[in-house]
C-alpha cells in the first residue's frame, strides 16, 4: 500500500497536473520524488495527464497516410510500404486512433454503441441456435467476444435457452419423443468437433403438459415456454419453431427416438 501523502504535497500534484504543462516524469523531478509514485498517486486521485500523449510526435507525419493506406492493405503491407517495424506500426495506429481529427478513417467497422433492447432480444432468439460468430456478424458486433459479453450481462450463457437438448428429451419423455419437432442447430462447442446441438423448442414441448409426465418437468416447461413466447413477441408455436429452424438454416426435422433407432450394420 502506498504511503500516505501530506495534504500539501497532494495539492501541489493537483496544481501541476491541472496546469497541463508537465509530464509525470517532469512533475516527479520538480517535486523530488519517484516517477511511479507520482503516476500511482495521480491515478488514485482520479487525475489524468494528457501532456505526454500531446507531446508524442514520433511518426506524426505518417498517421493520416497510414490509416488511409491501411483501409485497403494488410498490416504487413503497410509496414513494408512505410518502413515501420511491427511495434512502430502498432504504436502509430494506437496514437492515431486517439486523434479526433482522424476519427473518420477507420478500417474497423464494428459498432461501439451500447446494445439496444431489440438487439438484445434478437441475440436471445438466436442464442444456442446459431454460432456466436454468426450472431455477431448479423448484428454487426465484431466477434464472438462481444456476443459472449452481452450474454453474460444478460445473466445467461446457456445453449438450452431456446430449446431442450435432444438428450434430455429422450431421457425425460421416452414415450413422447417421436412426435416432437427437433431442430438441428448450427451452433455447437468450439474446437472444431463438428458436433451440433439438437434441440426441441420449449414452446413445442407445451402439448406435453397434458400428458402424464413428471410434475417438476411440467413446471420447467411452463416457465421456459412462457419465456420463449415472450421473447418471440407472443407469436404462435408454429411460427416460433419455423423461426428457430430458419435461424439454424435448416427446417425442423423429426428424428427417431434413441430406443427405436435401427441397430448399426456391421461392416463386411
Amino acid at each position, binding site marked *: 500500500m502506498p504511503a500516505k501523502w501530506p495534504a500539501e504535497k497532494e495539492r501541489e500534484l493537483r496544481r501541476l497536473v491541472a496546469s497541463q504543462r508537465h509530464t509525470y516524469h517532469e512533475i516527479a523531478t520538480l517535486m523530488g520524488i519517484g516517477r511511479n509514485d507520482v503516476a500511482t498517486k495521480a491515478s488514485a486521485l482520479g487525475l489524468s495527464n494528457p501532456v505526454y500523449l500531446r507531446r508524442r510526435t514520433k511518426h506524426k507525419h505518417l498517421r493520416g497516410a497510414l490509416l488511409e493506406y491501411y483501409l485497403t492493405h494488410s498490416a504487413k503491407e503497410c509496414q513494408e510500404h512505410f518502413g515501420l517495424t511491427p511495434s512502430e506500426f502498432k504504436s502509430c495506429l494506437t496514437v492515431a486512433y486517439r486523434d479526433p481529427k482522424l476519427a473518420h478513417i477507420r478500417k474497423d467497422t464494428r459498432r461501439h454503441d451500447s446494445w439496444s*433492447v431489440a438487439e*438484445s*432480444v434478437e441475440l*436471445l432468439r438466436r442464442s444456442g441456435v446459431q454460432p456466436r460468430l454468426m450472431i455477431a456478424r448479423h448484428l454487426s458486433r465484431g466477434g464472438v467476444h462481444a456476443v459472449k459479453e452481452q450474454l453474460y*450481462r*444478460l*445473466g*445467461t*450463457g*446457456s445453449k*438450452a*435457452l431456446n430449446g431442450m437438448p435432444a438428450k*434430455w428429451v429422450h*431421457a*425425460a419423455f421416452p414415450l413422447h419423443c417421436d412426435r416432437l419437432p427437433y431442430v438441428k442447430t448450427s451452433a455447437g462447442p468450439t474446437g472444431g468437433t463438428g458436433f451440433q446441438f439438437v434441440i426441441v423448442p420449449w414452446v413445442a414441448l407445451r402439448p406435453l403438459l397434458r400428458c402424464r409426465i413428471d410434475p*417438476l*418437468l411440467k*413446471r*420447467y416447461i*411452463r*416457465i*421456459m415456454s*412462457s*419465456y420463449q*413466447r*415472450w*421473447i418471440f*413477441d407472443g407469436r404462435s408455436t408454429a411460427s416460433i419453431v419455423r423461426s428457430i429452424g430458419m435461424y439454424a438454416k435448416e427446417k425442423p426435422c423429426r428424428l427417431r427416438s434413441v430406443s427405436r433407432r435401427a441397430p448399426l450394420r456391421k461392416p463386411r
Partner: protein
Amino acid sequence: MQIAKREPKSAIAKASMKTRSEGLLDKLESLMDRVTGEKVTAETVRAATDCADKAIQLMRLNFEAHKFFAEAGVMGDAEE
C-alpha cells in the same frame, strides 16, 4: 386385534415439506409470470433471462442427480 401401521415420523415430515427444487421453482414461476406480463424493456429482458437461466441450471442439476442415482442403483429421492 389389529394394530394400525404407523408411518415413521421422518416420512410424514418429508411428505408435508416441499422439496428445495419445488420451493425454487415456485419463486421462478412467479417471477417469470410477473416479468412476462410486462413490456419488453432492458430490465425485464435481463430479469426474465436470468430467471430462465436459473431454471435451466436447476433442471440440469435434477437431470444429473437422477442420472447419478440411476447409475448408482440407489432408489432414493434426489431432491433431499
